[in-house]
C-alpha cells in the first residue's frame, strides 16, 4: 500500500492547490530564465542574422548597437579594395519612436545596402523582400504592422511589403528594414520649417562665399535633402559590414583595417561580446541575479510547504511507529510526496508557461539546458526539504499518537 498516494487522495483538494501554487512559482522561475535567455538571444540576433564577418565602425566607438557610430558611406569602396574582402555593405541602424493609433511604437530602423541586399535572407513569414529602392519596408511581426500598411515616417509614406519573425533589437523593439537611403532619410528627418531655415542659411552661406559665386550650381544643391547632397557633406552611415573571402581568416583581414586610423574594426565575435558586455550587460545581470534570488526563494517556500505537510502528519507518523511501521515506510511516504509535489509542480510550470510565455512582449526562450537545470534544482530542493520533515519525523515518539 502506498501511503503517499493514499494521503494525497484523501487530501486531494489541498494537495492540488499546493501543487498549483508551487507550479506557478516554478513557472516564474522558469520564465525568468527564459527572459534571461531571450535578452541574450535578441541582443545578438541582428548580428547573427546579417552574417557579416567584420564590422567597421567610427574610430574608438563600440559600434552602432552600443552608441552613435558615424562613418562616411564611401568607406564601402575603400573597404572593397582591401585584399581578402569579398563584399562590403553599408549598414544604417537607429531606433525611432512614433505614435500609431495613439500608442507609442518603437521601431529599430535598419538600412539595407541596396541593391546588393534586398533582405532576401530575412526570416519572412509573409510578403517579399524589397523590390524598389524607395518607400518600401519589411517589418517584424512584433511591430504589429500588417502587410500593405502605409506608414508615415518623416516626410514619406512607406509600404509594408514583408513581415519577418523574431527580428528584434537588443532593447526588444521590432526591426524594420529599409534601403540605406530611406533609413537615412528617416534618421535625418527634420521638420519642414527647420529644413526651410537651414536651406535658406545654406543658400546664404553659399552665395556669400567666393566658392558659391564661382559655382552657382552649388547653391542650387542647397535646396536638396541633406542625404542627397554629397558635395556638401558625404552621407553618414553607421557601419560597414564586411564578408571575407573564404580561406582567409577574420583576424588577418581585420588586422589590415586596424591599421586605418579613421575607423575601428571588430570581428563578429568581438561585436557580440561588446553587445553582451555593453548595452545589455546591466539588464542581463539584473535579470540573472533576480533569477538566482527567485530560485532561492522558491526553494525556501517549497521547503516550508513540504515541512508543513510533514508536520501535519506527525500524529499519523507517531501512530505508524506505534503499530511498528519501519522507518523506511515512513520516510518513503515523505520523500515520495515531496518528489510528487516537485514533479507535478514542474509539469504545471512547463505546461502553463508554454501557453503564457509567447504572449510576453519580449521573447522568453526556454532552452533544453535551462529546463534540465531547473528540473535538477527542483529535484534537489524536493529531496533536501523532505530531509527537514524526515528529521522531524524520526524524532517523533510513538507515545505522541496517544496525546491530543
Amino acid at each position, binding site marked *: *500500500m502506498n*501511503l503517499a498516494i*493514499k*494521503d494525497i*487522495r*484523501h*487530501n486531494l483538494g489541498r494537495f492540488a492547490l499546493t501543487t498549483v501554487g508551487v507550479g506557478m512559482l516554478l513557472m516564474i522561475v522558469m520564465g525568468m530564465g527564459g527572459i534571461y535567455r531571450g535578452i541574450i538571444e535578441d541582443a545578438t540576433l541582428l548580428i547573427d542574422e546579417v552574417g557579416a564577418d567584420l564590422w567597421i565602425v567610427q574610430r574608438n566607438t563600440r559600434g552602432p548597437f552600443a552608441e552613435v557610430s558615424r562613418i562616411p558611406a564611401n568607406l564601402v569602396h575603400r573597404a572593397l579594395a582591401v585584399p581578402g574582402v569579398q563584399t562590403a555593405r553599408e549598414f544604417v541602424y537607429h531606433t525611432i519612436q512614433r505614435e500609431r493609433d495613439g500608442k507609442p511604437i518603437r521601431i529599430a530602423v535598419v538600412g539595407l545596402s541596396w541593391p546588393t541586399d534586398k533582405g532576401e535572407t530575412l526570416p519572412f513569414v509573409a510578403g517579399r523582400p524589397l523590390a524598389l529602392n524607395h518607400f518600401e519596408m519589411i517589418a517584424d511581426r512584433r511591430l504589429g504592422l500588417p502587410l500593405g500598411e502605409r506608414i508615415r515616417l518623416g516626410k514619406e509614406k512607406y509600404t509594408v511589403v514583408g513581415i519577418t519573425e523574431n527580428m528584434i533589437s537588443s532593447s526588444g523593439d521590432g526591426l524594420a528594414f529599409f534601403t540605406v537611403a530611406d533609413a537615412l532619410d528617416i534618421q535625418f528627418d527634420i521638420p519642414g520649417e527647420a529644413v526651410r531655415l537651414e536651406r535658406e542659411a545654406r543658400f546664404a552661406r553659399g552665395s556669400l562665399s567666393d566658392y558659391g559665386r564661382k559655382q552657382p550650381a552649388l547653391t542650387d544643391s542647397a535646396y536638396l535633402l541633406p542625404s542627397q547632397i554629397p558635395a556638401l557633406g558625404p552621407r553618414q552611415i553607421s557601419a560597414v559590414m564586411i564578408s571575407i573571402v573564404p580561406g582567409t581568416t577574420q583576424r588577418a583581414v581585420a588586422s589590415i583595417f586596424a591599421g586605418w586610423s579613421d575607423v575601428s574594426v571588430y570581428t563578429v565575435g568581438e561585436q557580440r561580446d561588446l553587445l553582451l558586455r555593453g548595452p545589455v550587460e546591466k539588464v542581463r545581470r539584473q535579470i540573472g541575479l533576480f533569477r538566482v534570488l527567485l530560485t532561492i526563494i522558491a526553494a525556501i517556500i517549497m521547503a516550508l510547504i513540504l515541512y508543513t505537510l510533514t508536520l501535519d502528519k506527525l500524529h*499519523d507518523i507517531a*501512530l*505508524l*511507529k*506505534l*503499530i*511498528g*511501521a*519501519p522507518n523506511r*515506510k515512513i520516510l518513503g511516504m515523505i520523500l515520495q510526496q515531496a518528489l510528487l509535489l516537485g514533479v507535478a509542480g514542474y509539469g504545471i510550470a512547463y505546461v502553463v508557461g508554454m501557453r503564457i510565455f509567447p504572449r510576453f512582449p519580449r521573447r522568453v526562450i526556454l532552452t533544453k539546458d535551462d529546463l534540465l537545470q531547473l528540473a535538477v534544482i527542483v529535484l534537489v530542493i524536493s529531496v533536501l526539504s523532505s530531509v527537514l520533515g524526515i528529521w522531524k519525523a524520526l524524532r517523533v*515518539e*510513538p*507515545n505522541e*499518537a*496517544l496525546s491530543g
Partner: protein
Amino acid sequence: MDNEFAIETEGLTKIYGSGNTEVVAMRAATVNVCRGEVIALLGPSGSGKSTFLTAVGLINTPTAGRIRIGGELVVDGPKAHMDLRAFRRRHIGFVFQKSNLIPFLSAIENVQIALEINNWSKAASRKRAMSLLDYLGVADRANHSPSTLSGGQQQRVAVARALANQPSIILADEPTAALDSHLGRQVMELFGKLAHENGTGVVVVTHDQRSLDVFDSVYEMEDGMIRRSEIGILSQTK
C-alpha cells in the same frame, strides 16, 4: 520459550522529570498475565495506569524494572534488549480510548497496513483484513474513511487492527470510554473471547465497573502501586 505467562513485569518503576518536578508515576509494579488471561486495571485518574500500559507496550521506557513478553526478556531498566519497534510489530496489539485510526486510510486499509508492515502480500492482507472486519461486524464499512464511521465502528476497526498479526498480547487503554454501555460491554466480551480462543494475554484499563465480570482477574492501581483487587476475586467466584 513455551512459557505460561504472556506478560511478566518485575519491579517496574517510572519517574517523570527530576528534582522539584519529579513525579513517581509507577512504583515497583509486579504483575503476571497468563496466556489466554484477560485482566482489568482499575484506578483513579493519574494513578499511573497509562504509564504501566505504555511501558508494557514498549513505547515508554521504564526507569527501572524488567519486562518479559512470552517469556522473552524485552526490557531491563531503561535499556532495550532488542529492536522494540520490530517486536511491537509482531507481538503487541494496541487499542486506545480514541480509536487512533490513520485518517487517510479506509477502514480495511487501516487493518491492512498492520499486516503489510509484517510482510504480508497485498492480496493476503486484504483477505485477512476483510475477514477480521467481518468477525467484528464492520465488513460493510470496509471502504469507508474513519471520519465517516461511528465511535463504536471506529473502535471495532481499531480492535481488528490490534488483532491482525495475532499478537501475543493486547493492551487496551480505556477502549470503551467513547462507547455507550451496551457497545462497551460488547467490546469487553470480545476481548474475553479472543483471549480464551487464541491464548492472547489481554490488559484492559477501564472505569466501567459493570463489565468486570468479563475479566479473569482485576488489578487496582493507586499512587503508582498495583495490587490485585478484591473485586476481581469476587467476580471470579461469582
